[in-house]
């Protein structure tokens, strides 16, 4: 392929990816250590007791519906800090699991991207190997995002949140239902990756056809 000329930025990116994967590996070790420390240190467990709440998008005293019916329609004073009480410890573990999964996904991405960039530098992109790699990336993203949303919903159900201990409730919901804890945009992105990987596979087949045309 004589078409690709300016590839130096790709080489620089590839070298940076080596560095990133090292840092990500250290990060993973940190979270694994946290997972072991958590049962013994309530503060750290509370730090990881995270819940998806999009409250920061709403001004204070907006018409906010909170899970329980007693607060329905009442003007909520959202001044003050969002307090998450002692959530069950398994929520903290789920969240640490999310961190570890996210880091390992990005680590996997780094390695696969390094291999793909290498193949571009070798001027041999449309191989079945690369098509397989893109498909792996797309599926691992999809699986991660689905698991992430599931854990979001589970956290929203099991953790009690309150504003400075006012309006304590099992699930803080803004303008709607529990489904707010579920973000569709991320899944669309994973679907986009899947589609692109299929298109790439078609490209590979086309190149194969072209190569075997005498």
């Amino acid at each position: 392929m004589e078409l690709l000329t300016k590839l130096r930025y790709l080489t620089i990116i590839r070298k940076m990816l080596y560095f990133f994967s090292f840092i990500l590996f250290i990060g993973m070790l940190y979270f694994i250590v946290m997972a072991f420390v958590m049962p013994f240190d309530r503060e750290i467990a509370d730090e990881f007791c995270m819940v998806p709440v999009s409250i920061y998008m709403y001004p204070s005293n907006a018409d906010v519906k909170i899970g329980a019916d007693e607060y329905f329609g009442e003007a909520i004073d959202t001044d003050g800090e969002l307090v998450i009480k002692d959530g069950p410890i398994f929520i903290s573990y789920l969240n640490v699991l999310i961190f570890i999964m996210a880091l390992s996904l990005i680590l996997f991405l780094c390695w696969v991207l390094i291999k793909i960039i290498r193949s571009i530098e070798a001027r041999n992109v449309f191989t079945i190997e690369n098509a397989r790699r893109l498909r792996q990336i797309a599926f691992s993203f999809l699986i991660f995002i689905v698991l992430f949303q599931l854990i979001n919903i589970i956290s929203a159900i099991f953790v009690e949140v309150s504003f400075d201990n006012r309006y304590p409730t099992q699930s803080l919901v803004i303008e709607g239902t529990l489904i707010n804890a579920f973000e569709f945009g991320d899944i669309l992105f994973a679907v986009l990756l899947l589609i692109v990987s299929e298109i790439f596979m078609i490209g590979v087949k086309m190149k194969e056809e072209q190569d075997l045309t005498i």
Partner: protein
Amino acid sequence: MAIIVNLDVMLAKRKMPLKELSERIGITMANLSILKTGKARAIRFSTLEAICRELECTPGDILEYRGE
């Protein structure tokens, strides 16, 4: 594939080695051997024309359809 390539038969008849044919028509040995072994998916008319010109034959002498 259902199309059989009888290139080696024609090469034997004209007593031409594969290497010489590849040099005459400007196709690499690798590509010609892909054609000979039946791995090719498609052939350009220009290539077919060049082969027939050098081997002084017609496409039917080189390509044969054997339906399954």
